[in-house]
């Protein structure tokens, strides 16, 4: 099963390598990984999505907690959560097809952030499903490039 782990870490050199090394060294797999500073000085948050059975996820969480530079690990899959991912998608957009692409952009409530002669760059935010749906729809126009952040997630306020 896919799990979303929220990992609070000390923001110091090598911390990412400690976390990623733990995964690779023990044969666990990282699906997505996102890191950025929090409001607190010297503390960053990582959102890691990974796939494994219960026993593997339990090991991953315990092993993460064992790292000295890891402050807190929460398995967001166990609680109600909000999950989002941001993607930039560059799609081929010749004259005759541009209107249709823009319609889809509208329906998906995403934004065009860059326009070229025959391509558009779209910014889309949402769940993995939404991103996949958009990719599927855009594929027939020709996707030239994508860049994705990987999931970020948070526990919902009203549980």
């Amino acid at each position: 099963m896919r799990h979303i782990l929220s990992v609070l870490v000390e923001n110091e050199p090598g911390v990412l390598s400690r976390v990623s090394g733990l995964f690779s060294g023990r044969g666990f797999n990282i699906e997505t990984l996102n890191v950025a500073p929090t409001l607190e000085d010297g503390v960053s948050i990582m959102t890691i999505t990974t796939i494994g059975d219960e026993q593997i996820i339990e090991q991953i969480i315990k092993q993460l907690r064992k790292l000295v530079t890891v402050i807190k690990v929460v398995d967001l899959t166990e609680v109600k959560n909000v999950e989002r991912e941001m993607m930039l998608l560059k799609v081929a957009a010749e004259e005759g097809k541009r209107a249709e692409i823009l319609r889809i952009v509208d329906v998906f409530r995403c934004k065009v952030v860059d326009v070229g002669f025959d391509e558009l760059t779209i910014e889309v935010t949402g769940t993995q499903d939404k991103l996949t749906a958009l990719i599927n729809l855009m594929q027939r126009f020709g996707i030239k490039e994508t860049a994705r952040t990987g999931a970020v997630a948070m526990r919902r306020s009203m549980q």
Partner: protein
Amino acid sequence: MELTGAQILLESLGREGVDVIFGFPGGAVIDIYHQIPNYPNLKHVLVRHEQGAIHMADGYARATGKVGVCLVTSGPGATNTVTGIATAYMDSIPVVIITGQVPTPLIGNDAFQEVDIVGITRPCTKHNYLVKDITKLAKTIKEAFFLAQSGRPGPVLVDLPKDVQQQRCVFNYPKKVALRGYNPHYDPNVKQVRKVAELLCKAKHPVIYAGGGVISSSASKDLTKLAQTYNIPVTATLMGLGCFPGDDPLWLGMLGMHGTFAANHSISNADLILAVGARFDDRVTGKLSEFASKATMVHIDIDPTSIQKNVRVDVPIVADCRLFMEALNREMADVAQQKDACVPKDKWLAQITEWKTKHPLKYKPAAKGGPIKPQSVVEAIYKITKGDCIISTEVGQNQMWAAQFFNYKKPRTLLTSGGLGTMGFGFPAAIGAQAAFPEKLVIDVAGDGSIQMCIQELATAVCYNLPVKIVILNNGYLGMVRQWQELFYDKNYCSTCLDVAPDFVKLAEAYGAAGFRVTEAKDLDATLKKAFATPKACIVEVVVDPEENVYPMVPAGKSITEMILV
């Protein structure tokens, strides 16, 4: 008053009560070495190879329970310690490794003798540091020692650039350590302890399965008390040997691949296993699905990652083994009283006695005039010393015989590389232990293969008058691999025959140590006695039966009751 980084390091070591460091100098630590003569309370042992230094620090730590310290230069000096760091990591041994690093402006430039040792050792240290700011040095050393010995102990490396050693700042050694992400859990859950006491009382066929955690947490007194009061048989892993008296009737012997018949069958027939400070290593469990399949599993470990890693656990307890054992003894007294005493264990013990009598550890005695049996050498060492010594081992057949045919009665009397199985460990580890206890008899049980991996440390032993005794069971083979080739690889003895070996007697003498050779059984006892009485380091080379195997043996992947017996 301002001190240099080198002085701050040495002052800090003093605050941590370090009395000896094992090291090897080099350009990147020369500033530290420059200061060492100013710290007369700190003894420095100059080794001949950095692998020796780390194993010595490790052996010192295993024998004393204190933190072992080693000091090496950058680059090759640092990488030479990696095997030893991994060894200490696998066996949870507290060591602090100080490595020199190129000056900070050169880091990342492929400078002379530069290596990313923090990166290299990340997977085999409990934690590691690169100190780039002199004002953080004292705090880092404090943290390193705290981390090394608290929770599940382990090696911690501090990488110290040359310019930081030379910079100056006010020395202020912190009193406390505050690490947000590190809070080992020591106290056992009271309800869980009660539950264990009740299970233990009810159990008809309980077994205690003790590991190295019992020794590192000093839980053996309480464990022995529990076992003896309630008649619970005890088996231990290689790392746990010595945590329970090896001459007690409740002692089952070691379990696992080369464990005793009684231990392996007790585990397989147990209805309750109390696993204390052990981690269900594959050398112990054999085929996992058949390991203790009839038992309710109670597992106590300070490290939560050890629990549920390999086997299903019915009662998991994250705690310090000693605190758990103390609590369990209290609860047991209460439960046993309330529930009108425990289920008597007589029948179970009778069954165990039968197993022990029917299938004791044994070997075919030497034929008349035939070669000496290696097992008999270990037995002779036991008989002569009465078990009152520290044994270290190399790795392989010698290690298993030393584990099987010697009754360890006290913790910290067997120093052996359990998890990593590091050949070359035993001799330097013995030197480390001897440095801690100059008056004790320290014996390295070695094979002719392993001993050659760190043999150069003979110079260290001789130089510092550390009278370590090396008993080489010389069978002319890399014996354990040869045994596997014999049993599972059609006797294809590829690269396991050591045709060319040094003359160990001459080798010892060349280093200024004493050398003895035994080729006939009748000379064994006398020579060992003579060697043990020699006040300097010595090698006793015993020429043993080259084709002797370690039995019992459980083939890899088989259930632990599927044993090949003698």
